[in-house]
Structure formats: C-alpha cells, structure tokens
C-alpha cells in the first residue's frame, strides 16, 4: 500500500529559482532564504520519498485563456521546463509517475472531483522552484513527481475547502494503490504577496503566521478563509495558499511539525515553509 507520510508547504517565488540558477545564493539578500531550507534538504534526503505529489498553479505557462482547468493531474512520463520569457530554467525535466497518477485520477474522479487529465504540459516555476529548494541542484530529480495543478489565476478559483477535500480524496487514492510507495505531498505558493497594482508589495506577517499555526494545530480553522479575505488581508497572490490546503487535507488530522521557516522578503513575497509529518501509526 502506498502512503503519504509527510507534507511540505513552500512558497515558489521565481526569484528564488533565479538566485539559485545564477549562483547568487551566498549573497546577503539570499543567504537567509536558502538557510531556511538547509534542514529541509537533509530531512528529505534522509526520508527518500519514492514519489512526490506537487500541488502548484500554472502561471499561464501550460494553460492560457484558451483553456484553463480548475484542477488537473499530470499523468505523463515527463514534463519539460517551461520558457516563461527568460528561457527555461536550467534544471532537469520532471519525470512523472504515470502508474500512480492515473490511479489517483481514476479514484478522485469517481469521488466527484472533475479533473483535467494532463499528459503533455510544460511545468513552470510553480513546480520547479519547490523542487530546487528541497532537492538542490542535482543532474536529475531524485524521484518521480506527480504534478497537481490548481487554478488560482483566472477567477473563479476553487475554495480552500474544496482544495482541502481534494487533498483527502488524493490521500484515499494513494492508500488504495497496490504498491508500497512512500509519498510526500507538496503544497506550494504564497504566502502573503501581491505582484501587481498600486498595492504591490503587500505583506501580512500576522496573517501568514496564523495560517501556519492553524495548519499545524487546527487546519479546519483555515478552511473558512474566503477568497476576499486572502486578497484583502494578504495580497492578491496570497490566494495561492489554497494549494497548501490540498497538502494539509492529504495528511492526518494530527501531525508533527518537523520544521518551519518564515522570512520577508524574497522579491515581492513572504517566504513561508513548513514540514509536517503524520504521526507514525
């Protein structure tokens, strides 16, 4: 039986990827950011997950206004790195895990989640930056990745509650897979930030830290955050935090907090990061 053993929440700020790719991780601006992930890299290197499920949003890279799905699951063998205007990041392509991905699709669609099946898509910083901060700069990623994409760009976007329930459905699917696999799920994006308009640069530490606290001790409390509240209180792009709810929904109600990191700023964004492990049963 496959099992989701832990969840990782992390921002996916493109500038973090650029800092890594351009060898700027030692600069005073970036050093504290990467320091926050040192323990995480050790943790995941020791854990050696067989598969990671990475919940992220496509930033108008694989999808456009021609077509935008609410939820998608990548079932492909491999995903190229998107060219977001500055050339593709110099990181390895992402290898998928079609067996488990299709199994998840089978199960989750029958549980009334209306997924888009995605076999061919380029993956953007939303996915590649979390891989970089957790796995560093290997010549290939240490395990297969199942991309789960969530629309947080074109409104209407799904509610936090719906995302949390998707996490529960994914967990159920993973647990009915007939091979022994150790799975880690990533929820990415956020935390407070706003990229555009005259209010760009908004950060709300209180909101972010309350969100992190709730994530550990009272995940249900985060489910009541409305879209309006994310936007008003924590910036237009804080809506990405609904993707952390997918991750949290896929874990046990009770979890151990292994690591937490919070830092302002990286580019326009409050970097938040947390590692949660299910208690061993």
């Amino acid at each position, binding site marked *: 039986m496959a099992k989701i053993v832990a969840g990782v929440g992390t921002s996916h700020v493109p500038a973090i990827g650029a800092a890594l790719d351009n060898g700027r991780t030692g600069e005073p601006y970036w050093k504290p950011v990467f320091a926050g992930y040192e323990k995480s890299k050790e943790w995941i290197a020791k854990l050696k997950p067989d598969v990671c499920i990475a919940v992220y949003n496509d930033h108008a890279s694989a999808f456009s206004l021609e077509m935008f799905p609410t939820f998608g699951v990548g079932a492909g063998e491999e995903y190229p790195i998107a060219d*977001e*205007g500055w050339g593709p990041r110099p990181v390895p392509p992402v290898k998928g895990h079609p067996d488990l991905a299709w199994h998840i699709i089978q199960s989750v669609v029958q549980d009334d989640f209306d997924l888009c099946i995605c076999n061919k898509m380029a993956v953007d910083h939303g996915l590649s930056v979390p891989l970089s901060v957790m796995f560093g700069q290997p010549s290939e990623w240490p395990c297969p990745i199942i991309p789960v994409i969530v629309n947080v760009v074109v*409104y209407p976007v799904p509610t936090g509650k719906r995302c949390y329930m998707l996490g529960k459905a994914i967990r159920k699917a993973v647990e009915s897979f007939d091979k022994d696999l150790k799975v880690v799920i990533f929820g990415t994006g956020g935390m407070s930030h706003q*990229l555009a308009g005259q209010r760009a640069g908004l950060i709300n530490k209180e909101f972010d830290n309350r969100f992190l606290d709730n994530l550990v001790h009272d995940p249900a409390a985060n489910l009541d955050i409305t879209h309006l509240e994310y*936007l*008003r209180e924590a910036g237009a792009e804080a809506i990405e935090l609904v993707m952390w709810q997918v991750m949290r929904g896929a874990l046990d109600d009770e979890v151990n907090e292994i690591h937490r990191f919070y830092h302002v700023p990286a*580019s326009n964004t409050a970097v938040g990061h947390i590692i949660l492990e299910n208690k061993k049963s």
Partner: protein
Amino acid sequence: MPINAAYEDIPGTVVFDMDRARQGYHLNMFCMTLMKPENRVAFKANEAEYLKQFPMTEAQAKAILSRDWNAMINLGGNIYFTGKLAATDGLSFQQVAAKMSANSQEEYLQMMLAGGRSVEGNRSKSEWKNRG
C-alpha cells in the same frame, strides 16, 4: 458581476475575473507568444508591427508599447501574462512591481526589506480616499 463586487473595494488591486479575462483576452494571448524565443526576437525587432497580429484595442497596444504596466492590468492584462513581456525586457517581477507601486526601485526594495507594505490602511478603498 455582483458575485465579485466585494473585490472592487480592495484598493490598488485588480482581480482577474471574468470581465478582465474577456477584456484582456488578446493582450494576454499576445504575451503568451513571448514564451518562444523566436517570437521575442520578432517582437523586439518591430513591436508595433508584431502587435498588429492581435485584435486588441488601441489603448491596450499603447500600454504595451509604452510599458505602462498598471495600464495593462487595468485594461485586462494579468500579471502572469504581462510577466512574459517583462521577462522579454529582462525585468524581474520585483522591478515591475516597483514600477507599478513605488516612486523608485530603491524605495520599493527598501520597503520590502523593511517587511513589505503593511495591510494597515490598505484594506479598503475608503482608507485610500485621502490619497492623491
């Protein structure tokens, strides 16, 4: 639409809802083409000519040509789409955010280093009434 009316009260913020997605369709789809290097070259070679492929409004084309990033957003652009134009220009998201919201790059950088823009006083348009 009534369903979104509440968003309109957030100051200095444009939510990319149905009205914006419709208004900005061609502006944003132009930006998508900049994901190919050969298109970036073609655009840079003759920007006005390149834009003629896309049936956008004159105001939208003008906003693009003059790199008026707030105007693009107000005319239906979305930051993840216009971000491709920024990248084509060699600009980061932070540089564009500064252009949209601060007097200078330096001012914006300092604000972010000091913890970012506070939510206090920035929740509702009513709080911005007395701004210039």
